[in-house]
């Protein structure tokens, strides 16, 4: 709650929250459980109440330096330690380090006889002792039904419990009280009346033979909280609640482009490939080459040093590696280098939410730059169209917010190529469609870009050929019969080549002709020139002779003159 200006309005003190450290729980509660107050966690047997409560204490001790007391009425301390060891929690160590106190309260109904008025002060003293011993800030009582099982007098018990919760508040400890689910009320004995600050229910729901754990915050006084059912899972790291993905559509858009792995495809995208952080859908019928396109993209990304997470719902990783090797893509080397991680599971292995949570966890651990999912059409088997679409929407939102590029394959039926069963087309930024073209008794694969948001792309259909060296995209021929692919294309290519050859030869011939004519011309010119030159020579000779004779005549005259001694 916001603090407001004291001068104009009274300040509001916001509720202090105690962070649990449990994956996702702090998000849906807006910061954690109410500090210094008791929270009720109820659910039927096996729902995970004890795990939740214990994890609350453990993380409190380890991450927030708040020691805790676990008061159990159902299991002994040894049993608890054993059970939680399988979850990777070392209780004994924490007890030894005085970060955790585990107190097993044994109430054996058969040895108790009620003989009048009593109260549960012994429990208070015991708790007080435990809290003091580790200076606890967090307390768990698991389960309070244990008290009801031991004592008959419900009225006294109720009164004492009310007193206990008040006492816990006074002590300032944040407490979790677990209780069994009642038939008509939240808890069997109506504890929710006293523990009114925060109530969380856990459930184990089974639909279509697939079980999912769900959590719901029924009540959280004084705070905003998520009100939906949140699926969660319990694994070696404790509880993970499906994170609340931001549905506000405010993720950033990158302008960086990353190559597709197929150079010709890059050029079809007017340059450099897909946008980083975009979602790419490759759809097509069986055997049209979808997984291969995925593999090329991954190969390219790994080559750049980016980590890739490849989620397979239909085959085993070994199979994919083998299949891709046949077209010259070696994925195994990236696996060995730690750049490529496979996550393979049949969709029917668990529910949609579990898949989502598992994927989230993988991404959080591995930090990939690229996530590939092959195929998403299988997921329809484990949920309705609406649910599957919801799940994929959440996933895509999460990936986009983290700027992770994601690529998906979708198996489409022949006549509904441009739809997807799960109607996720609007979530995808880029859509590559793979088709089979059947002509002349053979089928060939073709690819075209149906859409690519934010960039210019080619609208041409290209033939997709799987070669030993990967995928190649060739131009298709538009012949008289329509699009030609495969052998028809080859024959067309051959005939065009032949034509070109003929034309070439024609040119060559003409060229030679021209040369010949030039030579003739040159020869003629040469002859004329020679004739001219000899005439020139003659003329020159004549001129020079004439000049010479003139000179001689002049000289002679002079001489004659001199000789005659002509009088001047």
């Amino acid at each position, binding site marked *: 709650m916001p603090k407001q200006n004291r001068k104009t309005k009274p300040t509001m003190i916001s509720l202090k929250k105690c962070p649990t450290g449990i994956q996702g729980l702090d998000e849906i509660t807006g910061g954690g459980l109410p500090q210094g107050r008791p929270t009720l966690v109820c659910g039927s047997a096996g729902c995970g109440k004890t795990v939740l409560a214990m994890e609350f204490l453990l993380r409190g001790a380890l991450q927030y330096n708040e020691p805790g007391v676990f008061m159990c009425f159902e299991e002994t301390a040894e049993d608890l330690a054993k059970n939680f060891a399988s979850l990777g929690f070392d209780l004994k160590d924490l007890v030894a380090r005085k970060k955790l106190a585990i107190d097993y309260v044994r109430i054996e109904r058969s040895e108790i006889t009620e003989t009048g008025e*009593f*109260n549960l002060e012994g429990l208070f003293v015991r708790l*007080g002792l435990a809290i003091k011993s580790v200076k606890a800030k967090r307390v768990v009582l698991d389960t309070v039904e244990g008290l009801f099982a031991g004592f008959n007098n419900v009225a006294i018990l109720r009164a004492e419990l009310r007193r206990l919760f008040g006492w816990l508040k006074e002590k300032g400890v944040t407490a979790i009280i677990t209780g069994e689910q009642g038939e008509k009320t939240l808890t069997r004995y109506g504890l929710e009346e006293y523990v009114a600050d925060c109530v969380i229910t856990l459930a184990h729901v089974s639909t279509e033979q697939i079980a999912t754990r769900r959590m719901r915050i029924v009540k959280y006084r004084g705070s905003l909280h998520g009100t939906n059912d949140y699926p969660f899972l319990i694994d070696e790291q404790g509880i993970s609640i499906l994170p609340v993905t931001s549905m506000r559509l405010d993720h950033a858009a990158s302008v960086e482009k990353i190559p597709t792995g197929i150079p010709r495809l890059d050029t079809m995208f007017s340059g450099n490939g897909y946008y980083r952080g975009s979602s790419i859908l490759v759809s097509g019928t069986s055997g049209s080459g979808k997984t291969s396109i995925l593999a090329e993209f991954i190969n390219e990304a790994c080559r750049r040093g980016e980590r890739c997470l490849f989620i397979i719902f239909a085959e085993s990783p070994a199979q994919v590696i083998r299949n891709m090797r046949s077209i010259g893509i070696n994925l195994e080397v990236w696996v060995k280098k730690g750049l490529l991680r496979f996550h393979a599971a049949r969709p029917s292995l668990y529910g949609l939410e579990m898949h989502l949570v598992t994927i989230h966890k993988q991404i959080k651990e591995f930090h990939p730059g690229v996530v590939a999912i092959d195929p998403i059409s299988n997921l329809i088997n484990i949920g309705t169209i609406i649910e599957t679409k919801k799940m994929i929407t959440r996933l895509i939102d999460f990936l986009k917010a983290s700027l992770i590029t994601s690529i998906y394959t979708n198996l489409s039926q022949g006549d509904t190529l441009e739809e997807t069963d799960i109607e996720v087309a609007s979530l995808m930024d880029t859509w590559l469609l793979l088709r089979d073209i059947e002509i002349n008794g053979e089928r060939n694969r073709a690819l075209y870009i149906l859409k690519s948001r934010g960039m210019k792309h080619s609208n041409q259909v290209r033939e997709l050929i799987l070669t030993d060296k990967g995928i190649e995209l060739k131009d298709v021929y538009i012949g008289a019969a329509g699009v030609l692919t495969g052998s028809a294309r080859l024959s067309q290519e051959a005939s065009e080549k032949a034509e070109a050859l003929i034309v070439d030869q024609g040119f060559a011939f003409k060229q030679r002709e021209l040369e010949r004519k030039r030579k003739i011309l040159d020869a003629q010119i040469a002859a004329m020139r020679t004739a001219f030159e000899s005439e020139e020579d003659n003329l020159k000779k004549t001129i020079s002779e004439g000049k010479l004779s003139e000179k001689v005549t002049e000289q002679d005259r002079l001489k004659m003159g001199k000789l005659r001694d002509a009088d001047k």
Partner: protein
Amino acid sequence: MKPDKTAVKKTKKTASKKEKYVLRLYVAGQTQNSIRAIENIKHICEEYLKGLYSLEVVDIYQQPVLAKGDQIIAVPTLLRKLPLPLRKFIGDMSTTERILVGLDLRPKK
């Protein structure tokens, strides 16, 4: 004044070898219930177990660890340690019949 162990422990030296009942009463300070319980149990012991019992009164505030060891949650609690089996009686010990039956005694006639 709080009751302490030495004042209440009744052990007749002559009958020490024949003590059959070892009883321990846990109380919480000086509450109404506690005082009533002590009185009632003293009364019962004197009337029905004269010379055959040893009664210890423990204040859980004084000795919380002892209370924890005996798994005492409710107070007052009377713990019959001997003879076995272990029995617990919780309350102010006002229902005498119940206690006698529980202690395997028949009311003396």
